[in-house]
């Protein structure tokens, strides 16, 4: 109603007069009212469609294609590993330059993904994985009853050690070789030495003082170490790894890490997802299940946004370019870990179909954006491009690592869904 009418309850002079006029001329009312509204509706719909919910496009792929993409990615890692077991860290196809930098945590992550391939049955990658592991073990530091990895006199990084332990456990499962058992437990004791009373973990260890660097945290180091601790607990249930691991798991689940490290939002921590998967079922209380649900939500949203990215036209303005493969991959591998966890935990069973759908979608996107052999052959240095994913013409070892892990998880989910459908 119509300002000027509301003020007086029954006397509605302007309103009645207007109503009478309009009743006499319906087309005019239609023009004056409906057309502007229609314009606003159409404009609003267009804005919502373009800016808020662009089409989520998930290319169709088969489980075999997903597996082949994972193998091609592992091939990139194996091919770009030198005699010392060091990966090519990064490559820019625009400038045709290899990035001379290096990061030992990412090296350890790449190594871990090669062992994931071995564990998935691709045993041809074992020599490459072992060579990459050799690069890490060449930097072994043993002190008292614990051991760590420190690169070129640098401080030891908690995440590196976490990956080494998880990798060696995968290697043990794949090969049955128990020769690293004692070393793995020494690494485990190192990680416990980094733990604070509230469950937080310090990210660095100083070689000179042979002690943790105080007050230095890392956003993902805690999850990387936690995963390894739960893997140790799985391997040695009587080893006493469960209590400290649970303490750190609670530290993460309660959001204390984000408060301590100054993050406004909860971190979508894929390593925490791996940790929850590795956690013994009797330790998984409702708090852990709720944390798993929360993480699954983050990974899902990341995947949905990725599916909305076209990388061209007006879509670039609202969604930017398709995300860095490492970032997209983490969402996939985190979701895959939770998918496997949900297979054992009835409390998460309701999420499995949606998780599988997101994994399949992400796999489709990544398979279609991977550099094929023919695309690689058309440019310089095909060995540095084939099987890789590029973000703004740059690829890096962790891009291959994270997507590879995500693809392996997606493949499993797709095969299980196919079986269920049959």
């Amino acid at each position: 109603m119509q300002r000027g009418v509301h003020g007086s309850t029954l006397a509605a002079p302007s309103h009645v007069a207007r109503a009478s006029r309009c009743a006499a001329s319906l087309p005019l009312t239609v023009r004056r009212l409906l057309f502007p509204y229609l314009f606003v509706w159409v404009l609003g719909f267009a804005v919502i469609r373009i800016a808020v919910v662009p089409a989520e496009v998930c290319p169709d792929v088969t489980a075999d294609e997903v597996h082949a993409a994972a193998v091609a990615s592992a091939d990139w890692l194996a091919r770009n590993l030198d005699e010392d077991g060091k990966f090519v860290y990064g490559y820019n196809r625009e400038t045709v330059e290899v990035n001379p930098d290096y990061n030992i945590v990412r090296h350890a992550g790449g190594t871990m993904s090669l062992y994931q391939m071995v564990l998935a049955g691709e045993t041809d990658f074992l020599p490459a994985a072992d060579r990459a592991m050799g690069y890490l073990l060449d930097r072994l530091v043993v002190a008292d009853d614990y051991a760590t990895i420190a690169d070129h006199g640098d401080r030891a990084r908690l995440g590196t050690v976490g990956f080494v332990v998880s990798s060696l456990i995968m290697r043990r499962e794949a090969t049955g070789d128990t020769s690293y058992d004692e070393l793995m437990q020494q690494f485990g004791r190192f990680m416990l030495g980094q733990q604070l009373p509230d469950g937080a973990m310090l990210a660095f260890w100083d070689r000179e003082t042979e002690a943790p660097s105080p007050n230095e945290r890392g956003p993902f180091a805690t999850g990387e170490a936690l995963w390894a601790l739960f893997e140790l607990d799985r391997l040695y249930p009587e080893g006493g790894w469960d209590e400290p691991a649970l303490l750190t798991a609670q530290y993460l689940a309660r959001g204390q890490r984000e408060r301590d490290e100054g993050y406004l939002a909860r971190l979508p921590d894929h390593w925490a997802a791996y940790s929850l998967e590795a956690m013994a079922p009797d330790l998984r209380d409702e708090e852990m299940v709720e944390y798993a649900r929360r993480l699954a939500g983050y990974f899902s949203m990341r995947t949905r946004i990725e599916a909305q990215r076209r990388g061209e036209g007006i879509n670039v303005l609202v969604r930017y370019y398709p995300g860095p493969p490492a970032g997209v991959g983490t969402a996939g591998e985190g979701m895959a870990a939770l998918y496997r966890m949900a297979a054992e935990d009835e409390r998460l069973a309701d999420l499995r179909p949606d998780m599988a759908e997101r994994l399949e979608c992400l796999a489709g996107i990544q398979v279609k954006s991977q550099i094929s052999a023919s695309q690689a052959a058309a440019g310089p240095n095909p060995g540095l491009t084939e099987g890789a994913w590029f973000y703004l013409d740059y690829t890096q070892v962790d891009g291959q690592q994270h997507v590879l892990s995500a693809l392996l998880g997606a493949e499993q989910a797709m095969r299980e869904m196919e079986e269920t459908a049959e």
Partner: protein
Amino acid sequence: MILISTENTTAIMVFAFIAYVAAVNPPRLRIGLPESHGRARFGPLLAGSALVFVITAALALSAEAMLDWFQITAESWRMASGIIVGLVGARVLVAPQRADEPVLDGWGAALVPVAFPLLFTPQLAALAVLFGGTESTTVAVGMLALSLAVTVAVGMMRRTREALWLASARFFGALLIIVAVLEVVEGIRDV
């Protein structure tokens, strides 16, 4: 998001009812209705509400197919609908009274202004698609019917204290913002 994510059907129904009522905003509709004799108002109000019910229920019932066609997951639409209803809620808070617009007389009032632009609004359409795409027909359509019934009842009330009606309209705007926040957060947490 205890309320939305719960498996408790009653809680979901209550939430859907509150969301629909906040979207329709009965006091705002009442302010926007021509001030006429009770019986004269009842017919157009009922007819307009029935028309909106049919259109909106059709949207809700075809929501899944529609979202599929547009390649939008229900989880993403939950966030989008949260944004839509949040913007409308903010606007209602600022301006609880609609602008002066032409209306039709007699039964024509069922069409303009009752059905359009008062009842059939972007926020109502967005919520109908959301509940139609994610909840049961009982929730999506049943709660819509109930909220429109409440709206008809409020529409028949006498408007004596203008300030009270405006405050009520603002209250429903604020409620819409709460619904929006819940939907966006739930959209982030949905898998």
